[in-house]
């Protein structure tokens, strides 16, 4: 009996401050703590760097008109642009949107336009850039939200060159490897490095003006298979037919933009030029 009465009074006391009010107070408290944490981190850091980040969100009223937001981020040696972006998102604005995954230049998610150049955020050292650092989504692609662009067109072009291995014959044994000569492997080695990040396509002036142009990445992909000696000659002829069409290799005007920006250092222009020569050779007849 006595226990029941005691419980009753506790409830009465708590009712004076409504549960919603208590929750909001707790939230405010957390918010204050978080802000203090950021201030402390920024204060403690020997150096801070300012990020200017492109913001756009069609679903938020004051972000429908694109703008740049500034974030001050504590700098440490070895910090990448992606590290800074993650800090800005986690500590300042959780709505800041960008793609990232592996953080080691393998997944190809975080190609961004950093200080006027297409780079992988995870592979770009903060210390090597001019400050403040300006981060924008990849140019020549529609912006979906903040730093996220629509990659659909890029993927369409990549798939257009049939980017899969298609040999005439398979090895006899089920578990036997389909071997390739070391020389041939060496020839296509660099072209296999592509991580589909889209930096080259975004840097290409021709691709920007011609939506049908296959683009450097797709042509490089085609190169990887057209030059593979394990595929048959019919398949190679097929591949060359795709490559040499009007909006294929011949659109390339050797500006070398793609080669400059490729984060995996693929000699894209060289591969495109080699395919041009292949296309000419397969069509020239002297008899």
């Amino acid at each position, binding site marked *: 009996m006595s226990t029941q009465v005691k419980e009753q009074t506790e409830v009465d006391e708590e009712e004076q401050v409504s549960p919603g009010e208590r929750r909001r107070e707790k939230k405010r408290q957390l918010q204050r703590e978080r802000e203090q944490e950021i201030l402390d981190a920024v204060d403690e850091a020997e150096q801070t760097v300012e990020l200017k980040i492109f913001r*756009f969100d*069609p*679903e938020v009223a004051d972000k429908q008109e*694109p703008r740049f937001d500034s974030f001050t981020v504590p700098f440490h040696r070895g910090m990448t642009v992606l590290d800074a972006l993650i800090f800005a998102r986690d500590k300042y604005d959780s709505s800041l949107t960008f793609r990232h995954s592996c953080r080691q230049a393998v997944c190809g998610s975080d190609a961004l*336009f950093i200080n*006027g*150049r297409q780079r992988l955020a995870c592979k770009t050292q903060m210390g090597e850039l001019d400050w403040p650092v300006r981060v*924008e*989504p990849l*140019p*020549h692609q*529609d*912006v*979906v939200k903040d730093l996220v662009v*629509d990659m659909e067109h890029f993927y369409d072009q990549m798939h257009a060159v049939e980017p899969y291995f298609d040999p005439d014959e398979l090895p006899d044994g089920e578990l036997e490897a389909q071997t390739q000569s070391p020389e041939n492997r060496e020839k296509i080695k660099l072209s296999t490095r592509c991580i589909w990040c889209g930096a080259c396509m975004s*840097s290409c*002036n021709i691709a*920007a003006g011609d939506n049908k142009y296959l683009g450097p990445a797709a042509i490089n992909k085609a190169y990887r298979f057209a030059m593979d000696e394990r595929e048959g000659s019919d398949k190679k002829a097929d591949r060359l037919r795709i490559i040499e069409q009007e909006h294929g290799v011949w659109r390339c*005007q*050797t*500006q*070398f*933009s793609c*080669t*400059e920006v490729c984060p995996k250092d693929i*000699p894209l*222009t*060289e591969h495109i*030029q*080699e395919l*041009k*020569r292949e296309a000419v050779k397969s069509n020239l007849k002297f008899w």
Partner: protein
Amino acid sequence: MSSTYDRGTVESFGRWQEFSAGMWAWILHKFTGWILIGYLFTHIAVLSTATQSPEMYTDTLQGLEALLVVRFLEIGLLAVAVFHILNGIRLLMVDLGVGLESQHKSFYASLILTAIIALASIPTFLGGMF
């Protein structure tokens, strides 16, 4: 997906300070090419009206050469033609897949050579004007 935002030609001429060597080579090659085509038509137009008699031809040419601006334009034309030729050779190498990793060096080399040849031609083109 809701509406996306088209940023247009972000990488247009507004970013000329960030252009790489290959991009400058491309722009200059186009530019000089158009100038040469323009010059070719002017050249034909002027000369075809001047070939009615030997005297008229001499008069026309002497009249043109007496103008200082024409002398300067000739230096410019030489520079344009030389650059177009040198960069054309560079592009030929690029097409043949020779030395693609040093394409930027060959672009700078063709710029420097163009400058030297244009400067060296000044005494010839401006001779007798001053």
